[in-house]
């Protein structure tokens, strides 16, 4: 039966990745849990689908002018990466530092921001905030290009404190103003022209022009500022150095990491882990990687309480099912219709609804959305011509006595290979009864797409449609 090691590894990979098929699980199991945590937290060559192939076949993903192709481009990376934690981390920061296409009309620069999350998302939070403050997509998103030495625009300064670091209640209105002053002059190249193009959604005359950071010394307010009790002629980096020292910042970062990688709800046990992560934050010099290492090694994370304690987000739902099915590993005509599905489920990549990101957890679920979620994964995982499903069939056959599975073996086998997934007794009995419809399944001599294989596909469809599959 399912070993606890396997179940725990699957749990880790649902959190530090997009779930795992059995080959991946075995690969990580060979490393042992600690080795797997290190491998996930230290991404190397992702081996993802190469840009030259993507650009050759998908002109929209070469130009990255429009949203659907640009979201698909990121999705390809999520589907094909062998470093899933790198993408999961980028997705975390994308939700937290939520920057949206709908104001920018500039997908290339948003994808550059995502690349920055890959580059810096597991390192020092201080460096990450500096990079974020220099990110041109963020600058336009929160109007820092309108933040001038002579007349400040507080938007970025405020959200940096409220939504990106300390949270409300830990600073004064005066701190907001001083913070904004420190970021005057932090803008993007050709800021005025780029702003008018963004505001008009102008692609004229020759498509979009991507953005880069520009520091305008003459527009920077170099005067003395007092911020959180410290005084000096602070520039943006100085402000960030003060921000990251605050306990409120440690709590904020630890809490958000916990809720994304640990559990939707913070229980008493969870609160203790957050405290430990805060201690790591300070002892490591604000290293995100170390905080996550603390989480993944905690007794809480490894306990039953943390398993399936998150509602899968739409991106996890879609990418997880596609990776499990092994589909779209080569440039695929119509790939944007796959990534659009995430948007229909309420989470369009590159288009968080507001600067507050998505409302996660139970708020992912409503009846219209549930139909989309169930239909997508059910279709993806019931298709017996998909490589990942073929591999499941082969494993079921190899694990069966004489190639024959009785209904409960079929149900349990599918639950195991799509997870392992823990389901309630009621759910399992429905699955077994469903499997009984055709009696025992004889996989001897099965041929692609034949009746025996379809029976597996039908079982996988129903397992993918369970309540339990909705959880990570």
């Amino acid at each position, binding site marked *: 039966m399912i070993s606890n090691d396997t179940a725990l590894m699957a749990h880790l990979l649902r959190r530090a990745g997009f779930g795992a098929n059995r080959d991946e699980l075995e690969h990580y199991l060979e490393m042992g849990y600690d080795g797997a945590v290190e491998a996930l937290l230290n991404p190397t060559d992702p081996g993802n689908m190469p840009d030259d192939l993507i650009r050759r076949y998908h002109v929209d993903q070469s130009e990255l002018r429009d949203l659907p192709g640009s979201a698909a481009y990121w999705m390809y990376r999520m589907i094909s990466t062998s470093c899933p934690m790198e993408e999961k981390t980028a997705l975390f920061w994308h939700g937290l530092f939520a920057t949206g296409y709908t104001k920018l009309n500039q997908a290339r620069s948003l994808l550059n921001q995502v690349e920055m999350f890959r580059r810096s998302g597991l390192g020092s939070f201080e460096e990450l905030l500096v990079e974020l403050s220099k990110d041109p997509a963020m600058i336009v998103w929160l109007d820092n290009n309108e933040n001038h030495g002579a007349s400040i625009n507080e938007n970025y300064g405020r959200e940096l404190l409220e939504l990106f670091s300390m949270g409300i209640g830990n600073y004064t209105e005066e701190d907001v103003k001083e913070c904004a002053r420190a970021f005057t002059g932090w803008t993007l190249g050709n800021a005025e022209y780029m702003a008018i193009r963004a505001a008009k959604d102008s692609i004229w005359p020759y498509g979009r022009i991507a953005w880069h950071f520009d520091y305008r010394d003459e527009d920077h307010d170099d005067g003395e500022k007092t911020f959180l009790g410290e005084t000096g002629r602070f520039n943006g980096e100085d402000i960030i150095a003060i921000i990251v020292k605050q306990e409120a910042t440690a709590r904020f970062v630890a809490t958000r990491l916990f809720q994304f990688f640990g559990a939707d709800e913070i229980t008493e046990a969870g609160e203790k882990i957050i405290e430990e992560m805060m201690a790591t934050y300070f002892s490591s010099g604000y290293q995100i990687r170390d905080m996550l290492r603390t989480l993944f090694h905690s007794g809480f994370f490894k306990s039953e309480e943390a398993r399936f304690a998150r509602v899968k987000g739409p991106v996890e739902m879609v990418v997880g099912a596609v990776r499990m099915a092994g589909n779209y590993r080569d440039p695929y005509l119509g790939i944007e219709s796959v990534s659009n599905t995430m948007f229909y489920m309420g989470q369009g990549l590159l288009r968080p*609804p507001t600067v507050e990101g998505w409302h996660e957890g139970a708020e992912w679920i409503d009846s219209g959305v549930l139909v989309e979620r169930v239909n997508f994964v059910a279709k993806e995982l019931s298709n017996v011509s998909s490589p990942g499903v073929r591999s499941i069939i082969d494993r079921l056959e190899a694990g069966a006595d004489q190639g024959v599975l009785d209904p409960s073996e079929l149900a349990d086998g599918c639950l195991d290979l799509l997870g392992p997934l823990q389901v309630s007794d009621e759910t399992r009995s429905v699955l077994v009864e469903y499997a009984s419809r055709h009696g025992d399944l004889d996989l001897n001599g099965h041929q692609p797409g034949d009746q025996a294989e379809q029976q597996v596909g039908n079982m996988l469809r129903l397992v993918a449609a369970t309540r339990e599959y909705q959880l990570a």
Partner: protein
Amino acid sequence: MTTTKHEKSLIVIQLTGGNDYLNTVVPYGEGKYYDSRPAINIPQDKVIPIDGRYGFNPSMGPIKALWDEGKVAVINGIGYENPNRSHFRSMDIWHTAEPDSIGKEGWLGRAIRDLDPQSENVLTGINFGRGLPRALGCPGVSVASVGDLDTYGLFPDVQDEELRMFTLEAFSRMYGGAAGRDPVMELLGQTGQDALQGADVLRTAPAMYSSTVEYAPDALSQNIKSISQVFHAGLGARVLYTQHGPQFDTHSGQLATHAKLWGELSGAVSCLMDDMKEHGTEDDATILIFSEFGRRIKDNGSGSDHGSGGVAFLIGGAVNGGMYGEYPSLAEAEQVEGDLRSNNDFRSVYTGILEDWLELDAAPIVNGQFEKFDIFRS
């Protein structure tokens, strides 16, 4: 579920991409129009005159027929101050009734919440098309997005009908488990049951509908037909939404594209009105047609670029037909950066619809008090 056949419904058709006002309701009596549009004007002898100054686009013949019956309200110069010329942002503004900050709730989502505060009917609001427009989004409000009415529901890709029913039955049992487990599992169970129920009811709509009206095969007409089927099935749907486009973004080759789009739209609206006449429901539904912005006054040699001030339409048996509001001046001094200056806030039209048609308190939905036109027959 309550069956509320004769409650008033709102049918919304969103024109995506920015419909060109000047070539929809054409100021053919003004030389300035022809001066500004050497490449894409509608010649005077092609315009369908409304009066001596204004006329409809030549492809709007069926709309003109409804106009002549007094069923078409044209709302001139609609928009908001400080116009935004970005598709997404301006559409967001229309959807959330919030021009100055990024709104979180859709105006129709709020309306649906107020129409059905206990969420008794999962079909109070329905979108026809994939992906929920922000107008319908509101926390706690579930709105179905129907891509294809004939296959709507769970497991549409299962071709074998017997297998599908068997699978749906299993699904129902899996989502119907005992109460008292954790709240998320409870929520999933309830939501799954709602989804099944909504799909079951929706699927009955085509069978409950018959009509002699034949809708054209284009995508809009088919969506409008689905709207008619659901509306006439008496399922209690109050807000039915669909969109047309995004080809309204006519930067190039505008004349041909715009004519095709309005040809399809006029045909679909005309069919729907005929359908309602046939079913005696003309006074039970009103159609709102809007777009995120109008287009620039001067053409660009082949089409027109993003502008402000646009036009909206309200069509239906309960509508007092006519021109509402003033057509904005084309004079340069009156323009906003080369665009028509809007003189009617879109939220005033929303207010009229909410108060005089859906009988709701408009202010909390549209974020303020707005004077409204007297468009609906009392």
